């Protein structure tokens, strides 16, 4: 991540305000508009040809939020969407509104269709159905209200008003009245009582003509906010009811759909707002709500004793405890009732259930560590995206901080390290986190982990006979994060399909490959280096001419192929250009050590040269030599960063393409 990625600052925003305070008075207050003015807005929004590739345009999206002293927030949303294409009409034929009956309530207040013909049709809201949400891996009882609209046509516009109150972190409670508003307002008050936060994106996958966010907070309740990733118009006002903030944008273009792009929150204009003054405050709260839940019991104590037995150092002991939490607590989340969604399950509960989500696995590890006498604290992080410095809740993941006697922290993540020899997965490098402690911690960041630490090495020994038949052996081994990848690929694949899976990898060498023997280490033996050995042959692999043979390196082909996952960055450069940063999670070194024995007397045609190239985000060095009748391919490709800014993508891609061209080029040998 470079400085260039960092968001725009309040000063940039402020520069707009003088001009925009004038503009603001011109902003149509849609809710108060007459139908005639709404029609004008719809007409002015344009047609399909103005938005190539989009099925609909959001004419106006307005969110009006009123925060009470308790932190309870009331969200009134108003939107008008104009249908541009028949496909867009089908895409928007059913609207879905998610909610959690225990922590928030949503009501669809009014829906109208402004027909292209000029008619206005009220949608019968008795058509709204209340259903369980689809769910996978996390089963906390989320629900949704679904509204099917009368058939839409191009030029129609859908006006929707909704009201929602509560907060977004889910927990379940007994006796919830599904679908209707609970008279008990307490249900909707956020767990961090008195506080409010929000993260609002101003760019989406569809075009938006105008988007507004109005926030009203009671007198005397200060907020911190900042705009990131681009400017927004803004205004601040106050009266005897409180302070009123407005943020808006015009003509927001749709976010391109690019594979492996950085998270939207890292690239779209966004507002981050919070009533918290600092991360320390959040840290103290997070520690306090977990004050009593990490108690052990005799069973856990016996387990801990067994796990640390024979381990000499603290790191070895903690690693053993984490391996157990990582491997034995499977990822599947069930609700414990009150507190679900934002608090860890008690360690004893997770120990009995042997399942949970990230926070529960973290809670299990803290319980094990505290039982073993280590100081461990719960922590929050955001996997795969930035956390901005405004202390709004921007986390999607819970982890563990081990406080060492010298006061430093070692971060642990039992969710991301199954099959790993790392204590912290390097796919989470450079991530921000906050540790929950009674004294309060600030926002911190995991350090960068260079590619030299994450090496995937292919050792290839092969021979080719005079008619081009290849017989070879491969050894795949890796370090740190790439070791985890290798262990997981081979350790979690269905056993009876493992051979076919590896045959698929080796089809990168040739579709005619015949795998003869496979030997795979124990992926759960963390005391032994993990290796995969494969013996194979390919009939007529090399083109055999009159006294010549030509072929490309089998080992390099395994890296520069979309048929294997060994150098995933290479599979990520299929697009010729990008508008969004490329995000590949981790750094890597792909290393090749190959010797191919040729028939006696064959010499490489032409001169041999080594090649190398250095770039900020990738580099490579490769050498091809001949020693006697052996062809030797040695080299490395380094993926240096996990985020490739869009402006550097072309250079990144060019380096990988150049490396691939050299590495997989057929080389001719002759007598």
């Amino acid at each position, binding site marked *: 991540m470079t400085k260039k990625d960092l968001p725009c600052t309040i000063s940039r925003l402020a520069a707009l305000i003088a001009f925009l305070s004038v503009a603001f008075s011109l902003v149509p207050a849609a809710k108060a508009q007459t139908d005639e003015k709404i029609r004008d807005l719809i007409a002015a929004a344009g047609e399909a040809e103005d938005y190539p590739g989009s099925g609909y345009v959001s004419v106006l999206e307005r969110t009006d939020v009123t925060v009470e002293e308790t932190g309870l927030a009331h969200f009134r949303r108003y939107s008008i969407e104009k249908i541009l294409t028949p496909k867009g009409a089908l895409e928007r034929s059913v609207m879905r509104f998610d909610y959690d009956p225990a922590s928030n309530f949503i009501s669809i207040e009014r829906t109208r269709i402004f027909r292209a013909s000029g008619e206005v049709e009220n949608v019968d809201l008795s058509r709204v159905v209340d259903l369980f949400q689809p769910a996978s891996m996390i089963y906390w009882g989320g629900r949704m209200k679904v509204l099917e609209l009368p058939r839409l046509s191009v030029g129609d516009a859908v006006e929707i008003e909704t009201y929602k109150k509560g907060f977004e972190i889910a927990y379940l409670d007994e006796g919830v009245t599904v679908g209707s508003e609970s008279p008990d307002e307490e249900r909707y008050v956020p767990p961090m009582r008195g506080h409010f936060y929000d993260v609002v994106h101003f760019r989406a996958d569809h075009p938006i003509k105008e988007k507004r966010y109005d926030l009203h907070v009671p007198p005397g309740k200060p907020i911190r906010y900042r705009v990131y990733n681009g400017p927004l118009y803004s205004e601040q006002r106050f009266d005897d009811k409180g302070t009123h903030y407005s943020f808006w944008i015009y003509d927001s273009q749709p976010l391109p759909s690019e594979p492996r792009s950085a998270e939207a929150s890292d690239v779209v204009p966004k507002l981050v707002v919070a009533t918290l003054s600092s991360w320390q405050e959040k840290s103290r709260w997070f520690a306090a709500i977990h004050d009593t839940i990490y108690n052990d019991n005799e069973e856990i104590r016996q387990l801990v004793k067994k796990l640390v037995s024979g381990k000499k150092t603290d790191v070895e002991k903690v690693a053993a405890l984490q391996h157990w939490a990582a491997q034995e607590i499977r990822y599947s989340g069930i609700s414990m009732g009150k507190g679900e969604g934002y608090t860890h399950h008690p360690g004893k509960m997770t120990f009995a259930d042997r399942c949970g989500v990230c926070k529960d696995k973290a809670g299990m590890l803290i319980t094990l560590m505290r039982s073993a006498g280590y100081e461990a604290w719960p922590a929050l992080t955001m996997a795969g995206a930035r956390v901005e410095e405004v202390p709004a809740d921007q986390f999607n993941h819970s982890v563990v901080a081990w406080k060492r006697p010298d006061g430093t922290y070692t971060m642990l993540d039992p969710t991301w390290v199954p099959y790993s020899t790392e204590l912290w997965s390097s796919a989470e490098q450079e991530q921000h986190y906050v540790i929950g402690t009674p004294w309060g911690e600030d926002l911190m960041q995991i350090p960068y982990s260079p590619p030299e630490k994450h090496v995937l090495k292919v050792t290839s020994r092969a021979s080719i006979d005079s008619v081009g038949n290849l017989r070879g052996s491969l050894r795949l081994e890796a370090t740190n994060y790439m070791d985890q990848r290798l262990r997981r690929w081979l*350790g979690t694949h269905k056993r009876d399909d493992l051979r076919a899976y590896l045959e698929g990898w080796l089809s990168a060498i040739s579709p005619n490959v015949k795998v003869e023997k496979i030997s795979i280490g124990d992926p759960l033996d963390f005391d032994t280096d993990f290796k995969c050995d494969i013996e194979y042959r390919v009939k007529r692999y090399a083109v055999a001419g009159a006294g010549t043979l030509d072929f490309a390196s089998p080992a390099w082909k395994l890296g520069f192929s979309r048929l294997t996952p060994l150098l995933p960055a290479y599979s990520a450069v299929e697009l010729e250009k990008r508008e969004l940063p490329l995000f590949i999670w981790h750094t890597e070194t792909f290393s090749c050590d190959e010797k191919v024995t040729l028939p006696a007397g064959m010499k490489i045609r032409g001169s041999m040269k080594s090649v190398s190239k250095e770039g900020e985000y990738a580099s490579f060095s490769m050498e091809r030599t001949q020693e006697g009748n052996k062809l030797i391919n040695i080299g490395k490709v380094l993926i240096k960063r996990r985020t490739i800014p869009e402006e550097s993508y072309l250079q990144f891609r060019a380096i990988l393409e150049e490396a691939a061209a050299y590495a997989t080029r057929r080389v001719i040998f002759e007598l």
Partner: protein
Amino acid sequence: MKRVILSALFLAFVSIAVSMPEGAAGRARRGSQIDRDADAVVLYDSLAISMDNLGYITTRRHRAVVLYTDNAIGRYGDPRILFDSRREELRVKTARVHRKDGATVDTKANGINRTTPFGLDLAPDYAGWQETVVTHVGIEKGCTAELEYEIVDLEPRKNLSGLQVFSAEDPTRLRVVVVRLPQGQELTCCRANGAPEPERKGSCWTWTVRDLPGRTPYDGGSWEGEYFPSIAYSTASSLEESLFDAASKISEAGVPFASCKSAIDKVLEGVNSEEEKILSVQKLSLESVRSVRVPYGLLSSPPRTAQRIYDSGYASTLDRAVLLAAMLRTAGFEAEPVLVSLGRSFCRGAEPPEFFGSVVISVSSKEGGELFLDPLSPYSRDGFSMLSGKTLVRLGKELSIFEVPRVDPSANRSSMTIEISPCKDGRLAGHGRALLMGVFSPYYMVRSGLSLEKYAKEHIENLLGGAELKKFSVLSLERHRCEMEFEFEAALSDLAQDERAYLPFPLPFDAELSGIERVKLERSYIGDAIKLVPCNLEVSCTLEIPPGWKLVSLPQESSVKSGIGSAAVTVEARSDGKKIVRSELSIEQDIAEPSFYADLKALVSSFEGGLVVLERE
């Protein structure tokens, strides 16, 4: 009584398994060679379906699986149970883990969670179908996960029917299917591929299968009941009775409706032939709704009315068929839904509704005769040929069943002849001719809106690893025959002096649907069959070596023949120095079962691939 016996059997099995020092894992490993590397072993899997005197059906499933690996835990840890909440009630009876130390851990209420199936969230009409996820707690490697539930009808049914295939993803020790009927009621049973006869005691039929091997499914395009032991059963005494409800509901749902009339009139403006009108209405039907992939069987829920389908803007496969039939009828055509079997029938007129996995619409035109329209995709190939080997049931005024005859390989031919010679600027010039017959004819693709030139361009540009289409002409375009000529150029000159030119030997002009694309040459084994279309694929390439270049290598000559078909590559050196390489593949079967995979692979391997390698002199 039967249930008691089965439960006792299961409990005995589990109690033995968990009480032994090595637990069930040890038993499973010793029990069978095929279990040795299994992720999981299914100890017991029973399905008991009973119908009471009033016609209410209760379906009970009881399963116990030993879980050895994380892969197995991932697949069995959170089973999902699908049921139709509008007419069924789900009762989870047991969700329990038997741990290695003999302890049991029961799933509590918070581990039983109802969800809406993925894909139905934006299709509220179908969302009566729900999935309850049962989260097993206390799982450890080597434990046994036991699940027992029943789905109870809330309304009676006329018939009880079902179709079971005895295949398994994991080694299965014991699989039992039990059907229990009211006293005196009869069950028609059919079986195939070595499935056992049922054991009958009074009004109870029981099929028992032991030691099913596990295999990872592979999508070879064929229904697994064609090659694994299968049974079908029904209380209906005839096909008419079996399908009466479904047929009458489909018929009632697909009536013409007014609100699509103007859209139909618009697309038919200026269209003269009946065939084109039909295809235009089909295109409109496809564009009128979005597809919803429903998780239940084709006839498990009745269709909605065409009007409702159109108004909602979304449709399942069955609803798409109803909509298409209704729109064709609105346009004045006689449209008839036709049920299509999952595979070859083994029931001889006693097929249960579960045997039908898709539906097409039959409609006739003056020009093209009867067309079988797929409601899910534009009509692009001869529909009847595509249905080869399937059993069809016409849902007309009277039901009629018939089998689509197997295709004669000679009817489907994709043949390409090209001549390549040097031209100026170091390029290669080629001219060729393609003959596409039977399912390979692009006639209907063109009638459904595809540009023939675009079609040809896509195929020709793949030649020699990258060619440029220069000229193209159609000699004939008929329903079952298309012939075209083309010219193209390919570059040789941008290679470095010491580099060779590697020209992939051309593949057939169009081999889509032949089934050879489903063959993965690197795979040593595939556990499922591959669907094929009997056909002949031919490529003939005449090559004149460009001046300043010499030939290094040509594809190897070969000849392979097996029960699946034959393949041959021949090379001829002509006196004028030109080389002619001919590659031919003849597929004679419409399915390659797993035991014939090696034969099929050998054919494809022989036919495909090979390089023409040139280098500068």
